[in-house]
């Protein structure tokens, strides 16, 4: 085996983290994007801007603020302890929460786009055929937004995999808990262990490439139908 056990552990952790974050963001980002796409509220622009904000802060700085907020003296920290969840920094769920926050725009923006491009008509049709709004969302909007969901999920997943500044900042680099692959490669590079770094980077790239390739093939296949 060309990867050490700790490399494998890091990769496995990364996949778990990215999956968890993508799933959470699908659940959280979809309604946000839908609201942004449909609402005529005046708040719309503001919420839209807020959602995009995490992008402009450097990840490690964002990580620093999250560390403050989630720490024992921070507001989020107070909340999580009140909820009996303990302190989040240095835990998997702390990482997940931070990544969710940081990756939100990658999920919301493409979804908002595709939702907007669907227009009113299909929803009107569905309504006249007796579909409630929720029903219409699942039976019409979702399938018509396949591509957008694909893009949003790819961006989110990939971004979580590559994410590093925030993770480093609040994760504490604990093996098996918060030492994800990106941190592991970074450590290799910093320690001038270039061979290990190359190996792991190559494997991650290859793995990602194959995954993306499969997704794109699927997407192309689906694309034919619409």
């Amino acid at each position, binding site marked *: 085996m060309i990867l050490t056990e700790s490399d494998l552990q890091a990769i496995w952790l990364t996949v778990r983290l990215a999956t968890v974050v993508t799933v959470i963001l699908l659940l959280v980002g979809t309604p946000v994007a839908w609201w942004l796409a449909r609402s005529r509220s005046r708040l719309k622009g503001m919420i839209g801007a807020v959602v995009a904000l995490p992008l402009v802060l450097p990840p490690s700085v964002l990580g620093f603020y999250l560390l403050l907020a989630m720490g024992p003296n921070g507001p989020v920290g107070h909340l999580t302890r009140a909820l009996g969840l303990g302190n989040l920094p240095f835990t998997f769920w702390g990482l997940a929460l931070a990544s969710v926050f940081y990756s939100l725009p990658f999920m919301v923006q493409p979804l908002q786009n595709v939702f907007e491009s669907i227009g*009113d*008509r*299909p929803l*009107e*049709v*569905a*309504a*006249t*055929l*007796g*579909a*409630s*709004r929720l*029903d*219409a969302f699942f*039976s*019409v909007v979702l*399938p*018509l937004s*396949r591509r957008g969901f694909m893009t949003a999920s790819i961006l989110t997943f990939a971004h979580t995999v590559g994410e590093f500044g925030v993770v480093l900042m609040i994760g504490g680099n604990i093996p098996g808990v918060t030492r994800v692959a990106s941190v592991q490669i970074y450590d290799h590079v910093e320690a001038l262990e270039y061979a290990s770094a190359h190996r792991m980077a190559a494997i991650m790239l290859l793995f990602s490439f194959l995954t993306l390739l499969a997704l794109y093939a699927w997407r192309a296949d689906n694309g034919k*139908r*619409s």
Partner: protein
Amino acid sequence: MHLTLNVQKNFPGFHLAADVSLSGDRVGVFGPSGSGKSTLVGMLAGFLKPDAGEILLNGDTLFSTSRKINVRPDQRRIAMVFQQHSLFPHMNVRNNLLYGYRRCQVDQRSIHLDTLVAVLQLDDLLERDITTLSGGQQQRVSLGRAILANPRLLLMDEPLSALDDTLRFQIIPYLKSVSSEFGIPYLFISHSLVEMRLMTDTVLAFDKGAMVGQTTSEQLARDRMGSSQVGYINLLNLGRASDNGSLYAYPWGAARLLLSAASDRDHSMAELSSKDIILFKQHPEAISARNLLQCTVRSLFNTGRRIGVELDCAGNTLISEVVQDAVNELGIIPGSTVFAAVKASAFRILPG
């Protein structure tokens, strides 16, 4: 169906006002392009909001500005055939057709896929992608989808415009039977007088956003007789046909008509244009027209440059159109006797 509708809707440069209270299951909306027909049904379906007014269907308030009611479209149970078909592109024909059906309570599903598919001639297309359908095929799927939703009211915005005559005249009687057999009232938009005559009883006529009148399709046909290419369309209730040489003899009230076409049903409906009836003062000789009826003039009415002559032919009513000169020359006055000549080929048996 009882519909009360009193709405206002303004667009820049266009103002629609309609005030109707009508009962009837087959209602037509008639008017030239841009007169506000689609806008009206959009408000009924619920995705266009009137600026002010009220909409009541069978006593239920669907919309009311004064009472601040606006029932959501999906709770109105009003299905719609859109002018631009708007099929779901991610579903095949079958799933498009069944979309509303599946959302309908099981005990309310009175109409079923198979019969509908047969009438609309969609049998071979069920598994097809929507994007591969021809224009007319799309229109038929759209129509079928709305009917299968088994709505409380069916709105149809020019549902037959992309269809050839053969298909159109097969679908019309089916639509009527859907209405009568399954009790689905409909509102039918069209700019075709023939379709209005055949499909509807009550007609709302629009012009430039104003409802110019609520009338019967019968009356509309009389009014437009003079300006329409097809004249007034007489609808004749015929009995069962019997052979008569190369023609078919149909009982028509106390009279008998010879037609060149036949149906094998006990009761048939035939249409006959007012233009196809020629009147004689005396019984003519050696005429190509196979039907010569002795009739009494009941009344005369004027539409444009034509005179409508309402005849009583052996107890049946028939409307012919003539010009003023003919009225004068033949001395057509109420109570006078005339002979009406009609060619055997002038009738069209309506399938159904």
